[in-house]
């Protein structure tokens, strides 16, 4: 059928009116009569034994209704589970109680909770809970944590190593033996803090009559929240309803189910009054997950003509004090399998040690494993270019997986669906005017100015994903998309999806798809998400999956309704179903267009059910679960130009060009927005952001004053374009776009800065490239040449 009017159009978002008028309801905006406020007492120590908790003063504080400690809860609540149990890596999942009951293992871990009549009283009383600690030695760095004699966090995690995971494909040994060029480089992907602008919050209400517990929570995946909360609360799922109202950004940090979510639900059930908890930013930095934090030693084998032969490496991934919900899968499946990037590298041998340390748990942060991999491989390409004296663009062209080789299986065993990497690179080079820049750069160098250009020709795995693969890699869930499409008697359409968008715009793009598919007015379509009581089981919004798997379910459900409508229309029009065609919202008899019925008329007939063909059930409603046959693999070419000011070490971003290929585009305005936001988060890793701990495990960057989230004047105007290579296996030819910017941009900026510093003999620096770090590196090289 014709994909017509709205697909591809720049349609304004329908969620916006409530957001721009201040009427939207975020979790902290949920107001319930008689609500109590919870405040969590948190550990000031990175590692300590709890010897005593005295809550008597807190209990006596005016307005306080209850205080619970970890010991009070130990038998009442199950430990927080980890849900990505990667096989074949001797994974150990240490126990993580909702509140620490014996030892604390990172600064900010909860030890008690206070509930009071208002926010201020709860905070005041939390200060009055006297906790005695016996401090223990702490370990922060993941390499140090694995050494003999390092403080051990968990009795059942020897060497603090929660897993050791290896991927091998091809014959790396032979490739290294045959190489003209072997490069060894140590890289770090520093620890980042996700910084969703809305911190976390939860509000719970127990219905005393039905025993039903409703939890409003800042979640990217309310069904996963319900699933996990039912385990922790030891409560059946049908008595739990989880609602993610408006959610103010997540970027992965709102995937995990957190101890506070379970606490608030428990407290509401226990106290018989609604309970609300809202995180402040400092808590967000200490108790909400962090991202990245890899230390990698990488060896690259290449021929002198720039052919990339093999990668061999070892990464120490810092997991923090406990294994957060998806933590083991991020530095392994979503990282190690993507190491070959967009290239025909024939062998990869890579080991990842997942290490626990006395730091905030680390989990999925935008891109989740893939930015780290892209940074490694894209830097590796540039190191090979530098070593062989070849142009980095040319090295890329020589190693790209050619268009005609798709579907293409990389050494790690995954199969890329489609790609045309050359075209994207050519477009980006044209946009940035590559040759002209190189001339300008050469002239500038003569004048003592340091310009650089960096490329990042990334490919990513997203649209998570086929459920059998999820199972095979230990993900404790399915990864299909789900949708119920329900037509009301008047022909209005409600679409309930199991994913949970929170700013990505699917309430608009899915309405575009449905309006086109069913031939109904856009205004007649409502997309419903974020409420387990209204939506079919689904796995949430992350991994650039919502548009991909969600749309698969939406079109499948629509097509079922069209098929049903065809049966009913044929019956009413006295024609054979084979002779009934559906177009632009009308069923008509082939060859006699005057004999026709609108989908609204058919829906009314289906609903009334007075005269349906034999075997056709009443109602116009269909639910579809779409399990994709493969992941999707968006790709693109980003180019960034910078100037490094040697006197100050400052990196000035000059231009940022992004050519992305996410297959067919439903709404270009929304795609641009996703790309921009992603790029800036990746630029931030390269230039600004780093979570820093001192040796005792105190987070030094524990506020927005100390942790450098980018601001408007710090980022350039980005120039975007697209190529379109549809995914061959997706019903609409879509690929994901939510993370590409972040996956690509860190490496592009890094390569640009290293290119700028090349005349000084600097081949590598660790991120972020703060003026201080760059300045020191330049100073160490001696005199800046005039």
């Amino acid at each position, binding site marked *: 059928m014709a994909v017509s009017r709205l697909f591809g159009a720049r349609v304004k978002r329908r969620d916006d009116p409530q957001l721009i008028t201040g009427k939207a*309801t975020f979790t902290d905006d949920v107001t319930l009569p008689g609500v109590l406020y919870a405040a969590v007492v948190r550990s000031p120590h990175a590692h300590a034994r709890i010897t005593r908790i005295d809550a008597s003063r807190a209990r006596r504080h005016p307005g306080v209704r209850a205080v619970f400690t970890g010991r009070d809860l130990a038998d009442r609540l199950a430990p927080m589970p980890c849900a990505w149990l990667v096989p074949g890596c001797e994974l150990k999942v240490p126990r993580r109680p909702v509140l620490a009951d014996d030892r604390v293992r990172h600064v900010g871990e909860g030890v008690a909770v206070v509930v009071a009549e208002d926010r201020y009283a709860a905070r005041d009383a939390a200060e009055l809970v006297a906790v005695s600690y016996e401090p223990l030695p702490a370990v922060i760095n993941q390499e140090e944590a694995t050494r003999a004699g390092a403080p051990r966090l968990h009795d059942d995690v020897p060497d603090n190593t929660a897993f050791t995971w290896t991927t091998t494909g091809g014959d790396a040994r032979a490739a290294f033996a045959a190489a003209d060029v072997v490069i060894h480089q140590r890289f770090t992907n520093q620890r980042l803090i996700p910084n969703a*602008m809305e911190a976390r919050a939860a509000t719970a209400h127990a219905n005393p009559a039905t025993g039903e517990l409703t939890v409003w929570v800042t979640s990217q995946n309310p069904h996963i929240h319900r699933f996990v909360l039912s385990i922790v609360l030891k409560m059946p799922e049908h008595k739990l309803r989880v609602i993610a109202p408006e959610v103010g950004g997540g970027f992965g940090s709102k995937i995990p189910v957190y101890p506070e979510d379970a606490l608030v639900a428990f407290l509401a059930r226990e106290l018989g009054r609604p309970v609300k908890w809202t995180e402040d930013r400092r808590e967000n930095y200490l108790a909400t997950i962090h991202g990245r934090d890899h230390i990698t030693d990488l060896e690259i084998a290449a021929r002198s003509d720039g052919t990339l032969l093999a990668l061999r490496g070892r990464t120490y991934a810092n997991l923090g004090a406990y294994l957060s919900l998806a933590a083991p899968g991020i530095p392994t499946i979503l990282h190690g399998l993507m190491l070959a990037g967009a290239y025909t590298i024939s062998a990869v041998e890579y080991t990842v040690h997942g290490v626990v340390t006395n730091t905030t748990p680390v989990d999925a942060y935008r891109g989740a494993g893939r930015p780290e991999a892209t940074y490694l491989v894209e830097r590796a390409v540039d190191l090979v270019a530098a070593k062989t004296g070849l142009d980095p663009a040319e090295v890329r062209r020589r190693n790209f997986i050619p268009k005609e080789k798709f579907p293409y299986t990389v050494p790690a065993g995954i199969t890329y669906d489609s790609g045309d990497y050359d075209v994207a690179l050519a477009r980006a080079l044209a946009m940035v005017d590559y040759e002209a820049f190189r001339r300008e750069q050469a002239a500038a160098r003569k004048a003592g100015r340091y310009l650089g250009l960096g490329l990042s020709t990334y490919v990513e795995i997203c649209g998570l994903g086929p459920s059998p693969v999820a199972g095979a890699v230990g993900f404790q869930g399915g990864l299909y998309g789900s949708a119920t499409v329900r037509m009301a008697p008047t022909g209005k359409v409600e679409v309930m999806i199991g994913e949970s968008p929170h700013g990505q715009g699917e309430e608009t793009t899915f309405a575009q798809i449905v309006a086109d598919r069913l031939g109904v007015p856009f205004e007649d379509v409502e997309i419903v998400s974020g409420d387990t009581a209204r939506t079919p089981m689904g796995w949430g919004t992350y991994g650039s999956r919502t548009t991909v798997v969600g749309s698969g379910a939406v079109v499948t459900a629509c097509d079922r309704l069209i098929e049903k409508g065809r049966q009913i229309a044929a019956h009413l029009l006295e024609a054979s179903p084979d002779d009934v065609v559906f177009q632009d919202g009308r069923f008509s008899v082939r060859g006699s267009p005057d004999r026709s019925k609108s989908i609204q008329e058919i829906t009314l007939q289906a609903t009334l059910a007075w005269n349906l063909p034999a075997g056709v059930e009443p109602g116009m409603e269909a639910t579809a679960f779409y399990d994709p046959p493969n992941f999707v693999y968006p790709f693109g070419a980003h180019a960034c130009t910078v100037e490094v000011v040697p006197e100050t070490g400052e990196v000035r971003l000059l231009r940022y060009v992004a050519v992305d290929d996410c297959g067919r585009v439903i709404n270009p305005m929304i795609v641009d927005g996703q790309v921009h936001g992603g790029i800036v988060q990746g630029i931030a890793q390269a230039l600004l952001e780093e979570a820093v701990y001192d040796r005792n495990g105190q987070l030094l960057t524990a506020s927005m004053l100390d942790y450098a989230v980018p*601001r408007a004047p710090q980022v350039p105007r980005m120039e975007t374009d697209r190529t379109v290579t549809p995914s061959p296996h997706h019903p609409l030819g879509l690929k994901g776009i939510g993370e590409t910017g972040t996956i690509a941009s860190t490496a592009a900026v890094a390569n640009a800065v290293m290119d700028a510093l090349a005349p000084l003999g600097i081949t590598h620096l660790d991120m972020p490239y703060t003026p201080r770090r760059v300045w020191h590196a330049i100073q160490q090289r001696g005199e800046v040449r005039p």
Partner: protein
Amino acid sequence: MKVTITVNGAKTTHDVEPRLLLVHYLRDVLGLTGTHIGCDTTSCGACTVHLNGLAVKSCTLLAVQADGGEVRTVEGLARNGQLHPIQEAFWEEHGLQCGFCTPGMMMTALQILERHPKPTEDQIRHGLEGNLCRCTGYQHIVNAVQAAARKMEGQNAKRR
């Protein structure tokens, strides 16, 4: 302590703790939850409102400091069901994704445009420096402020 604050044109009077933050007065006492809280260090601007015509961070003022004053919040931007040009522009230019920073962004944008009716991109970016957005990368926000400037210029021209 008793405070009287005019919020979006309506007089409000309440007995409050002296330490109550203005943002909590707006959100918890008045139920005007359009003004958000994104940090505890005056860094993010999610809480930006206008107090006596000046953009301020309402998380860093006590309600008592606003006593006798006039506050305008995001809820007071639209008039008579008519979106403010800044709101229209944010909608048309896709100046928001999750929308959490948006009320503060728009209140700051209003101040920028009051000071610079025809702002340069630099003036806009520097004007927005106190407001963080993690979703948009700022580009569409900057576009929205430019578009709002054009709309407001058109309106003023009509009025003249």
